[in-house]
């Protein structure tokens, strides 16, 4: 690369040339979307996700691999580091707003649409004309009792069972990553390795327990994605959160492998901090879920 000659110049802002990864990413995204569309429109079977998924994985390995390589070669000056940091923060902000849409749906259903369906407030006629017997409750699968068991009933997962354990797991993982971060800054690589490993193990444990909880909900509780508005909000919120925990845990695993290879210094470790911020973000979302979905 033409600019490698200037790599040691700490005044220069590194500008990569001729990158093949973004176009690979665009093609991968398009392939993945085509696969999803083909599957949903019954044009093809579940295999249609595979090509896009493979391309996406290839793109992530390649793109992040290139960036990590450049970082290790030392071509990024402090200002590039600032750009990465700000980019990550704004990306997390966009994720917060994505979850806000689903939390908004939950609050709207609980405080507005369900009471209105039971005849409260301004919208009395839906109740009078369609479902005069419907009383507002939460949880609910709606005035027509959509989904659930054969008799349309369903049960919810009590907050102070598995969800409370999961809360403890995630909060603990928030502590372990902080310990790992302090160890990294103090140059204690042993502590760093152990606590970072603990963090992603806790993360994957959380995902495993969520999967167990989902299994019970589907088999025994009559609580499914199609169980009215409760099932919809419950599974979409916890599902997207679970997806983010999975991604976060994979990211933790990646930076752990990088730690094993001796990456990161006490004062330059953007990737570590980015993953830590992301991890705290999924932690905070979980607290919202625990309070508003499981508990209240």
């Amino acid at each position, binding site marked *: 690369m033409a600019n490698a000659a200037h790599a040691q110049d700490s005044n220069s802002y590194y500008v990569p040339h001729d990158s093949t990864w973004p176009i690979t990413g665009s093609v991968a995204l398009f392939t993945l979307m085509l696969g999803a569309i083909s599957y949903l429109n019954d044009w093809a079977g579940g295999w249609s996700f595979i090509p896009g998924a493979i391309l996406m994985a290839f793109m992530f390995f390649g793109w992040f691999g290139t960036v990590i390589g450049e970082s290790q070669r030392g071509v990024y000056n402090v200002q590039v580091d600032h750009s990465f940091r700000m980019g990550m923060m704004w990306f997390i902000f*966009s994720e917060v707003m994505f979850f806000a849409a689903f939390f908004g749906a939950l609050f709207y259903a609980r405080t507005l649409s369900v009471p209105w369906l039971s005849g409260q407030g301004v919208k009395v006629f839906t109740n009078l004309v369609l479902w005069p017997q419907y009383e507002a409750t939460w949880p609910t699968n709606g005035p027509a009792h959509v989904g659930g068991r054969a008799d349309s009933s369903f049960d919810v997962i009590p907050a102070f069972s598995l969800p409370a354990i999961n809360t403890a797991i995630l909060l603990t993982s928030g502590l372990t990553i902080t310990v790992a971060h302090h160890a990294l800054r103090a140059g204690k690589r042993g502590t760093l390795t152990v606590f970072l490993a603990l963090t992603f193990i806790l993360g994957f444990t959380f995902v495993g327990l969520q999967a167990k909880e989902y299994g019970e909900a589907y088999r025994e509780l009559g609580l499914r994605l199609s169980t009215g*508005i409760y099932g919809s909000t419950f599974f979409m919120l916890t599902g997207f959160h679970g997806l983010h925990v999975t991604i976060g845990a994979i990211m933790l695993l990646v930076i752990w492998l990088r730690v094993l290879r001796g990456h990161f210094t006490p004062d330059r470790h953007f990737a570590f901090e980015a993953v830590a911020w992301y991890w705290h973000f999924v932690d905070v979302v979980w607290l919202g879920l625990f309070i508003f979905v499981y508990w209240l």
Partner: protein
Amino acid sequence: MAEHSVAAAHDHDHKPHGWRRWVYATNHKDIGTMYLVFACLMFFIGGAMAMVIRAELFKPGMQLVDPQLFNSMTTMHALIMIFGAVMPAWTGLANWMIPMQVGAPEMALPRLINFSFWILPFAFTLLLATLFVPGGAPAGGWTMYPPLVLQNGASFPMLIFAVHMMGASSILGAINVVVTILNMRAPGMTLLRMPLFVWTWLITAYLLIAVMPVLAGAVTMLLTDHFFGTTFFTAAGGGDPVMFQHIFWFFGHPEVYILILPAFGIVSEIIPTFSRKPLFGYEAMVYATASIAFLSFIVWAHHMFVVGMPLAAQLFFMLSTMLIAIPTGVKVFNWTATMWKGSLSFEPPMLFALAFLFLFTIGGFSGLMLAIVPADYQYQDTYFVVAHFHYVLVPGAIFGIMAGVYYWLPKWVGNMYHMGLAKWHFWLSAIFVNVLFFPQHFLGLAGMPRRIPDYAVQFTDWNMVSSIGGFGFGLSQLLFPILIYMCVKSGKPVKVNKAWEGAHGLEWELPSPAPYHSWQTPPSDAIIAKGAFH
């Protein structure tokens, strides 16, 4: 940032050649150019759909297309113009101009702008492909209201995923803009020295990052309602179709400021240049833009006054909407005051900026009328609404883009364009846009509903006038690409840095055409101070 200098990692104009230069691009100018070319292409595709609409509406009765295709045309026209033409045009201008205007060599995250651009052609391939699938293209309106949108055929998931891809592109593009503005400014380029185009884009990017994910959430709920049995928008399961409208317009109203704020910025650059005076009330302009952005989050339900909501909510959304007139009024006042006692000249960018000032204000006034709840009961879903938002978007956003291109084209290409032809383009556009949209106010007030392929005979005359205006406007736009082509191929070289004698700002300190990596060594404090209004 003040504490370190911003220099590119090279001191040479090494340009990759052939298709690789574009597909693998990391250069802010190359990517800006691709965005602008793409936006122009989409402008003509979306425009062709508008021509189908106006041809069908030329007289009552069914002439050309069946009602399903007609509704597909209105839906696709909106999606293409908003997400394919106006938003990419703004991002293209941002990529071109922001590094030049803040004294940076490049955008902050060069690979990411390539990604955000190259998602778009694929997203619009997906969207345009819906025209050829069983059941036809989406026909339920660009707002995608359930349950109507769920009745689309095979196009439904294509629409949803196309919107997801456009959203991803916008978010990544916006992150790049924010990071570039906050991190790549030359030392001495303080926030209140930044040109207003940079300021308005900073606020636009913030809005994009805040609301595009909300749109993604809304369309994801549509997808799961359609395919996976969720009941977000089904009353039987405890949901509410109106909830979609709330979530959608929480995105949708800030979205209209996403479409217009950069135009405010461009007009704030152009009017001082051709008035040969500094911008009146620079700081007030910044704060007005920020207040508009803040207010844009708390006005969304003015799009849904007739769907039924508590009286208190109607009052709140009516009053908050009217509040927006205050910062907007500040802006219109300041632009006017900038021209006061200036020595004005009327080159094409100034002409477009002045038309913007007058015609956007008309769109703003009809917006105020629509904000009044009892009046809105009458206007809702009529051509009055169509007239309103087209006044804001065509002589507003589109004229803003045109003004920006005519302003900066000599800097990009190094050649001046054909002044006479550009003035023809302006006058034809400015006259026909009014012939096209002004009668739609009358049609709407007389009760003609929007999104219908046929109408009662008493609406014929003004529909004919409007259609003639539409064809005239559409045809005159063909001058635009011709003019740009001529400028690139055979325009007269500008030679000087300042293509316009009254121009302010860092971009005019660079040679014309500007070097491949804009500011390889940061500009001096004196140069920055000279170009700033504050």
